[in-house]
């Protein structure tokens, strides 16, 4: 553990900025706090607990062009040379267009595809442990945990990213990290953890990357009592959060309550926007679209959210989650049931942004409290839950 005096903070940032892009919380012209690339002289804000959005955009980009492609027509000359026609073979299947003669290159255009790799070295500075844990939780998904596919785009950026987290001294009323195995000084995903104490910050390296950061000359050794002071800050913050629900059994509870009519009640004020997922540090669903003008274009990955009715809409017009409550249910089930089942962890780090920035303040804690309790083993006979299911689907009076 080291100590970073307050007056060394800017120098430390400048030091980091020499070899990487430094991203730190800064206010915009409306006074809203965002993670933004830091430039010397810019004011960094550590006072406010959370930025409006989590910094996930710096690794899992909201808009990420990952393929670029271009076509080239073979042009007039080539087109003229091309022999088309020939007799249709009598053998079935009947082709709409006669296949080109044997051995001839049938294509009249050439396609070039290249993948876009853009992963600059970066330091995300001053994020909170819940934000860092968001990365950690997404890492499971994009890293191919459990034998799934490995995402080279996310991981390249993740590999080039160092997380310097800041212990939360004064949690907000919407914070609930301790309920989901987190902590105001949690270390999941964190490379270097700073804890604000009088006169500066204690710094704990948690990884090799973090260790390397401590090489900066402005660090002092921890003075007497400073480690204890930091521990006090951590402990007080931890104690300041009263876990709003008991996490144990929640996946089973959500499974048991899948058809519970309470889903309908709780979703009433949901307006089906995507704010919760876009401010969330670990929601990772995305969309892929192509953009092309004339002969060249790109394939773009953009954030998507499960509240978007079009998210699951099939071209036939059928939508498995057409009703809002089904989409609502999916988000919580994904975080506390589906994801845990696949990745042996949780998809929520308890930052509480979804509560605070929801236009109607939908409260995740309330949802989990209400629907996360498993039915006792002897209770909940099958008929009941089925009946509830029918009830819920017909949407009759509840």
């Amino acid at each position, binding site marked *: 553990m080291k100590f970073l005096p307050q007056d060394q903070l800017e120098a430390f940032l400048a030091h980091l900025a020499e070899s990487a892009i430094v991203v730190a919380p800064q206010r915009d012209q409306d006074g809203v706090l965002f993670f933004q690339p830091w430039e010397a002289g810019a004011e960094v804000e550590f006072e406010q607990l959370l930025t409006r959005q989590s910094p996930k955009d710096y690794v899992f980009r909201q808009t990420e062009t990952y393929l670029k492609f271009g076509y080239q027509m073979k042009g007039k000359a080539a087109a003229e040379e091309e022999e088309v026609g020939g007799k249709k073979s009598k053998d079935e299947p009947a082709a709409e267009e006669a296949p080109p003669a044997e051995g001839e290159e049938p294509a009249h255009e050439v396609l070039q595809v290249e993948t876009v790799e853009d992963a600059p070295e970066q330091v995300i500075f001053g994020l909170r442990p819940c934000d860092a844990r968001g990365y950690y939780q997404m890492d499971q998904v994009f890293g191919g945990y459990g034998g799934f596919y490995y995402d080279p785009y996310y991981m390249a950026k993740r590999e080039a990213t160092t997380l310097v987290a800041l212990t939360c001294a004064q949690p907000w009323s919407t914070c609930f990290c301790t309920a989901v195995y987190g902590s105001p000084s949690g270390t999941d995903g964190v490379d270097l953890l700073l804890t604000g104490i009088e006169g500066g910050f204690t710094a704990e390296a948690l990884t090799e990357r973090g260790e390397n950061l401590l090489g900066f000359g402005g660090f002092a050794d921890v003075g007497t009592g400073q480690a204890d002071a930091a521990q006090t800050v951590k402990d007080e913050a931890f104690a300041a959060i009263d876990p709003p629900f008991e996490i144990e059994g929640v996946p089973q509870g959500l499974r048991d309550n899948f058809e519970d009519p309470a889903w309908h009640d709780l979703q009433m004020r949901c*307006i*089906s926007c995507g704010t919760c997922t876009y401010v969330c540090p670990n929601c990772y669903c995305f969309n892929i679209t192509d953009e092309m003008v004339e002969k060249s274009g790109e394939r773009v990955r953009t954030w998507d959210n499960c509240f978007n009715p079009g998210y699951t809409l099939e071209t036939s017009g059928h939508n498995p989650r057409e009703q809002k409550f089904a989409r609502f249910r999916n988000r919580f089930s994904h975080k506390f049931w589906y994801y845990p089942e696949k990745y042996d962890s949780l998809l929520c780090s308890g930052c509480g942004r979804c509560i605070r920035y929801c236009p109607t303040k939908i409260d995740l804690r309330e949802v989990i409290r209400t629907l996360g309790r498993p039915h006792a083993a002897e209770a909940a006979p099958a008929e009941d839950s089925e009946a509830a299911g029918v009830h819920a689907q017909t949407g009759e009076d509840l």
Partner: protein
Amino acid sequence: MSPANGNYEEVEQRIRELARTALEEGRVDYFIGWTAGYNESEVIPGFVRSADRVDALVWNPLAAYNLTAFLKRKMPDPPQAKIGLAVKGCDSRTLVSLLQEELVDRERLYVVGVPCEGIVNRRAVSKVFANEVVKIEVEDDTISVTNQDGETKQLAREEYLLDHCRSCKYPNPRYFDDLAGEAVTEPEDQAPMWREIEEFEALPEAEKDRLMAEAFEKCIRCYACINACPVCYCWDNCVCRARQPKLVSQKVNAQENLMFQMVHMFHVAGRCPSCGNCDRACPVEIPLYLLHRKMNKELKEMLDFEPGIDLEQKPVFQTFDVNDPFGQH
């Protein structure tokens, strides 16, 4: 806006009574009002399904949310629900817009009108402390704000009302079945209606361009604005997410974001009374409300039209007048 009369409790009681009666008599399946949020600085939409729960409903100057947004197609659950809801003056105008176009079924509605004396600009108020604001109280002309450390600041109510409340012309609902409490005095003159718009208009083009770019740079395209908008009605089939035709791409950048907002603006043109729900829903505080106010200013000048005033009116873009006083060239 005149100083507060301070009869919030009385109106609150009245809302509860009306909701209770409607629920008891089975006239509505549920009642939508306002209720307390996660702390004492928040008032949020509240849904009450049974008469014994009506005491959860509150009325105070934090009740900003325009509840008519919950009447939008596919919002009611069950779909054919009979709904009771409370509307303020500006909310009622969106309701009138919806009724004009028969986008809501009047037969399944029970509307409690709430005379309103202005809503607190919570966004501005919450910025008076760096840490969390946990309580906002309004008494007479003072707003008291308390943060998580228990410190309190007193603010002048007049300065911390929402912009459109400060120049509100229709504080009483335009449409309702029952009015909760007595109508408030309607202001006789409302001169500074377009003050903030005119200030913006006076800026040079390049400056407006820059401000727009800046504002929309930070848009995260969460679609909260359009989902909170009561008169936005594509709902499941929003054109901004459609690929055919591709008006807005999925890429998130200032241009696309502004284009997205333009789509919304033109779709609600002549139907939006600038209730400000989009603006307040925006998690990144883009001043959307200015765009819609500007639009209404222009419509007023073009056609002497104010949205949501008259049930018999047709939405301006669904009709025309051969003698429209413009475009003669």
